[in-house]
């Protein structure tokens, strides 16, 4: 029966169970309410149908009853609110240890990049049981990355980064949809997410890997090619601030504001360097607007992110072996 009349998508992520739980609760609440209203109105319509010589009994109302049917729904609503908010809080808070992948959307295609440098189009391979965070942006209009089997969705905007995370719990292939209407081929901006056993995923990552550069490595290469490194030196203070260790910190700006160094700030500083000048520096950096693609930006962001201050373990080191080739 369910084969022909499916009611549920697969449950393939850490969120699926909790979202379905709330859904079932709400379905039950709705059925109860609907039956209550339906039964009451049908009963009243039959029992109190108009009969010759019988007048309606005038009733003004009842404050107590009205209070009851305002307060009880309100309490139920607050339970639903709290329940929904808890799940949402989870959905919007990626764990710190999540593997960071990047997505760039465009009309009408999804481009993904793994930290190891593996790129995919309209397909994303992920290991089961690992926290995966996808950092996303769009080259043109608003899109939305949606995995029904994971019960997760996030709009993808031009000009900024949004993120989505999940932990896949079931091996298999699942739908990947664009959920925000984006023009002609919106319904064709689809693909699949392939969840693999971690060991198989490692094999898949290494398969066909003839000298692929990691994402951070690509970023580092660009960092040199574009001349960033002439001012942003890695050890001594150049004309621009040292970038090592700044990611995730609060940065004091020239105008006295504090800004958190996140993906959006790094992106903005590359494309519109004059927007937020770090305290103590001159606004001399040229814009790279139009010179770097969203994909290159993503790798630059990943590289800046990987730069750790002296004494901190650096991700760059891990990226080096591939980089050397």
């Amino acid at each position, binding site marked *: 029966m369910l084969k022909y009349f*499916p*009611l549920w998508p697969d449950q393939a992520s850490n969120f699926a169970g909790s979202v379905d739980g709330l859904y079932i609760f709400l379905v039950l609440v709705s059925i109860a309410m609907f039956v209550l209203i339906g039964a009451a109105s049908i009963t009243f*319509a039959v029992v*109190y149908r108009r009969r010759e010589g019988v*007048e309606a009994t005038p009733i003004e109302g009842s404050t107590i009853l*009205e209070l009851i049917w305002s307060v009880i729904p309100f309490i139920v609503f607050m339970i639903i609110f709290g329940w*929904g908010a808890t799940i949402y809080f989870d959905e919007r808070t990626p764990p710190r240890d999540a593997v960071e992948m990047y997505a760039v959307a465009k009309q009408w295609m999804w481009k993904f990049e793994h930290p190891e440098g593996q790129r995919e189009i309209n397909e994303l391979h992920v290991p089961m049981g690992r926290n995966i965070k996808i950092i996303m942006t769009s080259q043109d209009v608003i899109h939305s990355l949606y995995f029904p089997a994971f019960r997760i969705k996030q709009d993808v905007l031009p000009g900024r980064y949004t993120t989505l995370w999940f932990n896949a719990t079931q091996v298999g292939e699942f739908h990947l949809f664009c959920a925000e*209407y984006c023009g*002609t081929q919106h*319904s064709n901006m689809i693909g699949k997410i392939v969840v693999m056993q971690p060991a198989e995923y490692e094999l898949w990552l290494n398969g066909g890997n003839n000298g692929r550069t990691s994402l951070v490595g690509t970023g580092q290469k660009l960092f040199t090619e574009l001349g960033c490194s002439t001012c942003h030196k890695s050890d001594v203070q150049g004309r621009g601030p040292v970038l090592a260790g700044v990611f995730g910190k609060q940065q004091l700006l020239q105008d006295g504001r504090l800004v958190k160094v996140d993906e959006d700030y790094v992106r903005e500083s590359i494309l519109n360097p004059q927007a937020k000048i770090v305290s103590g520096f001159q606004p001399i950096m040229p814009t790279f607007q139009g010179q770097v693609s969203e994909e290159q930006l993503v790798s630059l962001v990943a590289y800046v992110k990987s730069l750790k201050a002296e004494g901190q373990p650096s991700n760059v080191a891990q990226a080096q072996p591939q980089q050397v080739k």
Partner: protein
Amino acid sequence: MSTAAAAPGSNYLTNGSSVSSWLLTKDHKRIALLYLLSVTFFFFIGGIFALLIRLELLTPQGDLLQADTYNKVFTMHGQVMVFFFLIPVVPAVLGNFLVPIMIGAKDLAFPRINLLSWYLYIVAGILMLWTLALGGVDTGWTFYTPLSSQFSRTNVVMAAVAVFINGFSSIFTGLNFIVTIHRMRAPGMTWNRLPLFIWAHYATSVIMVLGTPVIAITLLLVGFERMFHLGIFDPALGGDPLLFQHLFWFYSHPAVYIMILPSMGIVSELIACFSRKRIFGYSAVALSSIGIAVIGFLVWAHHMFVAGISLYAALVFSFLTYFVGVPSAIKVFNWTATMYKGAVTLTTPMIYAIGFLGLFTIGGLTGLFLAALGLDVHVTDTYFVVAHFHYVMVGGVVMAYLGGIHFWWPKITGRMYPEFWGKLSAMIGFVGFNLTFFPQFIVGYLGMPRRYWMYAPEFQVWNVLSTAGATVLAVGYLMPLVYLTWSLRYGPVVGDNPWGAVGLEWMTTSPPPTENFLEPPVVTWEAYDYEHIKEVPVAY
């Protein structure tokens, strides 16, 4: 009006039969009929698009239409239905006809502005049709940027201008109602004696006047960005795409209440009349309309939980959304309680009203799903949302509107429709609606995104059911058109008050004279004073 030399036996329909006596009329009742014809026309235009959508979605492949055509079809379906049918339908037709009569006034406060608002509606409507003739628009009715402002290659600006002009029609109607209700109530018609239909229209008018300018400005900005590349919404020009969504929903969420509040007003009248009782908790029902109008302005970002707003903003908007649920729940309970110990007759209008209760309850309850943050992430932008808002905006509004049309038909035309066909169409409409839209909740939860021209094969069974249901629904919506038209000529002439209803509109003749009342009424009784009305015909 100077021309209204009300001869005995003359009414607003017979007072002048030339084309100009209709097209230049300042009589709110004639303007209501002009609106009746025009919204019906646009309803069928929008309906044809709906039919094309349902036919395309019979199969998972995109086979009937091209992708671009499909996108234009659902866009025009939305724009025509929302802006040219659902928003004006109840206020501009039944509100226009009844607001002055129900409060004992001769006309609206500004009869010329009332006529102007119909002309603005027509100009906007013609522009909309012209847009269509030039190839349509493909942005979705929501005009999301930067798709609409930079990327779409269709007639976005013209469609935006049509909606912009239409907005002024709405603002003028709202303004007219507010002034009329404040200033032109008959002696003795205090605020506490107003029919709930009037309270609902008052609340609606406040939203129209406060909200509509925002959508007008927003669409103007879209036009500026599109034509002059001013960076407002497109990040490539230095704009912010989320700003558009905030502005758009700041109007478009309250717009849902522009659609549903007047319908709730109708339902209050119908349930009171056919239970022969005062509405249970009059003040609570009246104030809940105002409550909905006010809180309705504070919940807009619940359309944007996955759009990229902050976690905490989302929490606040979800919380506030549940507040708007409470007054809606109060109304539903009070309507149901009104039937308790009443003398209920299941006439056509009452069946429509109970149908409204059913559909609105389902629409309202599924709103609880969507306001729940963690669950909304999964179901937003899927067919679950499509089903939800159709239940509220279409199921609810059209049921109530048709109920109202049937209820006041003998007042408007002086003739009665065939009761059998009326009851039948109400029931077919209710069943057809559920067959069409209930499967969409399920396919939405399965993950089918909205605005998809092609879809995954496992979604097909629910789409086939939905399309099948739509044919039933179409019958339910077409039938009244036939027998109501028939009744204009062949329907039995009924008296001034065939339902034995209370309310000033039932104390004048059917159809009413141009000046509404031969003697200016003085009100000395409370609303829904069914206890004291004596002569009660039992014909229906």
